[in-house]
């Protein structure tokens, strides 16, 4: 992948690794933390916790329904229970268990889904979660976190355990550009403004935050100044930041490594329409399943590159200007 490289961003560990490191650290600090694994601990990176604290690590086998249910019972008896698997298996296999055994009873269960988005690459669409943001944000009582890089994922992991109630943390497989310094603060529900601008706002989550920063850089070369918001918390959404962006920049583009419908873009659009309607464009996986390939090739083919964001930004800006001209005539 080359996203962010033109900006001079360095590549750091995959967000799944950062999560695993933070989990191990937290496990030393808090003995109530327990982990339930669906026999993918070496993929989700919960394994180092399991090696350090075998008595607090339960591999229930390739059985996502029981994975979630067991975590639910542990949480109901007061443990800080985390269940992890590939995001697609967790949400697509065990959705009813997440609904009935976690969301509805508002239990303090932490779900971590790795291998999100199409940057999974060669393993192909069966392993790629492109529906998980839609599924998780659809659940009442859920908090949904999609951090962009390793430092913010470490902080998000800590914030997730400090938060009382069901949380979903989305992590990814490949190495990704580093955006934040080590020790960065992570405030659930509060978007981070990474760049200011008055012409258009780019709202992104996960890997697409780096892509949005690169797009903003390119737009700036054309004389278009873009604001960039890292919307790392997709639920609850920072509607204040969204309204401010709509008022101050007049048009918005969202970008996510997820189906373009019903993910971050849909959520932002709902907030925009309710609070301060402005033209919007949406970057995400179109309404299809992807295929095997290298992450870079897939991001290019399915329209998730910085160039796709700049194009969407120009479209949104043109629409804003046309409306503005129309209202003046």
């Amino acid at each position, binding site marked *: 992948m080359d996203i962010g490289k033109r900006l001079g961003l360095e590549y750091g560990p995959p967000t799944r690794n950062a999560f695993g490191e933070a989990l191990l650290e937290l496990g030393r600090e808090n003995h109530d933390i327990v982990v339930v694994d669906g026999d993918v601990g070496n993929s989700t990176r919960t394994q180092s916790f399991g090696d350090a604290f075998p008595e607090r690590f339960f591999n229930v086998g390739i059985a996502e329904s*029981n994975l979630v249910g067991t975590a639910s019972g542990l949480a*109901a008896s007061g443990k800080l229970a985390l269940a992890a698997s590939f995001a697609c298996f967790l949400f697509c296999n065990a959705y009813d268990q997440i609904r009935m055994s976690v969301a509805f009873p508002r239990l303090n269960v932490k779900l971590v889904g790795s291998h999100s988005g199409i940057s999974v690459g060669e393993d192909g669409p069966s392993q790629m979660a492109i529906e998980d943001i839609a599924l998780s944000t659809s659940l009442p009582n859920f908090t949904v976190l999609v951090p962009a890089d390793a430092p913010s994922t470490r902080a998000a992991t800590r914030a997730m355990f400090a938060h009382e109630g069901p949380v979903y943390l989305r992590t990814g497989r490949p190495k990704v550009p580093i955006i934040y310094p080590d020790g960065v603060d992570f405030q659930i529900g509060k978007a981070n403004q990474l760049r200011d601008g008055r012409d258009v706002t780019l709202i992104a989550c996960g890997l697409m935050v780096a892509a949005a920063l690169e797009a903003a850089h390119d737009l700036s070369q054309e004389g278009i100044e873009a604001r960039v918001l890292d919307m790392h918390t997709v639920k609850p959404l920072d509607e204040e930041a969204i309204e401010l962006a709509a008022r101050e920049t007049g048009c918005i583009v969202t970008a996510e490594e997820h189906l373009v419908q019903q993910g971050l873009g849909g959520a932002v659009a709902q907030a925009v329409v309710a609070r301060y309607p402005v033209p919007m464009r949406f970057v995400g996986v179109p309404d299809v399943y992807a295929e095997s390939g290298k992450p870079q090739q897939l991001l290019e083919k399915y329209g998730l590159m910085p160039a796709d964001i700049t194009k969407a930004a120009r479209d949104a800006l043109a629409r804003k200007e046309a409306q503005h001209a129309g209202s003046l005539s």
Partner: protein
Amino acid sequence: MMAENGNRPRRSLDELRQTSWRLSRQIMKMTTDAGSGHPSSSLSAIDTLTALYFGGIMRYHPERPQWPDRDRFILSKGHGVPALYAVMAEAGYFDPQRLMTLRELNSPLEGHPNMRALPGLEASTGSLGQGLSIGLGHALAARLDGRDYRVYVMLGDGEADEGQVWEATMAASKFDVDNLTAILDYNQYQQTGPVAEVMPSLPPFADKWRVFGWHVLEIDGHDLQAILEAFEEVRQVRDRPQMIVAHTLKGKGLSPFEDNDVNRMHGETLDEEQLEVALSELDARYGYVAGVK
């Protein structure tokens, strides 16, 4: 003032029998009054629940429903919840007069168990297959916390169609949770017909759990003495979870239910006329007269 150890007064066999009779009456009345619900699935479970809560088996404090050392009961077959509500009211979790608010707006007695609505419920169930996994989580938490509470999970027989039941069965065996006891309410009928017809390879149940390494008992689930003895036996088992296959009947001895050979009125309530018949048949079966004993 209840004992700090949560031990409850152990009712005599006669008293338990009378309790079961009284609660059976309440189940039928409350579901008829509500106009919907699953009375037959509740009646098949009532003797087991009566023994658990009033036979000196479970430790609990109705006034402290979150007491950390309490024994847990999870009704995985959530549609049988009128039986659990009747038992909880009898135990003192809430005023028995509230039983007649079953399924009404703003009543904590929802159509299926909602643990956030009614203190004392240990799980929100109603989507079948999930309770055993939840029970496993509680059982593991007891081990981690060094507590000696036990976890009881009641499953339906038709519920065993669900794959999650077997995921949990395997995992409970792997982790050697001897503080986990499951009860299969083998009442023989599920929604559209006999269990043996809907899923012919499911019975016999005992063999299935035995090969997964569980300690398995089979009992008459309407024989209170046998139920009490089963619960005493499972308490002695070490290093493995236990399954009590309780052979029961939906609406045993009550003609409105028994006359229905499709599913024994699964998910159907008695109308006023049927209720009168069933109540008098129940009274005759137990030899009690309502209002006298």
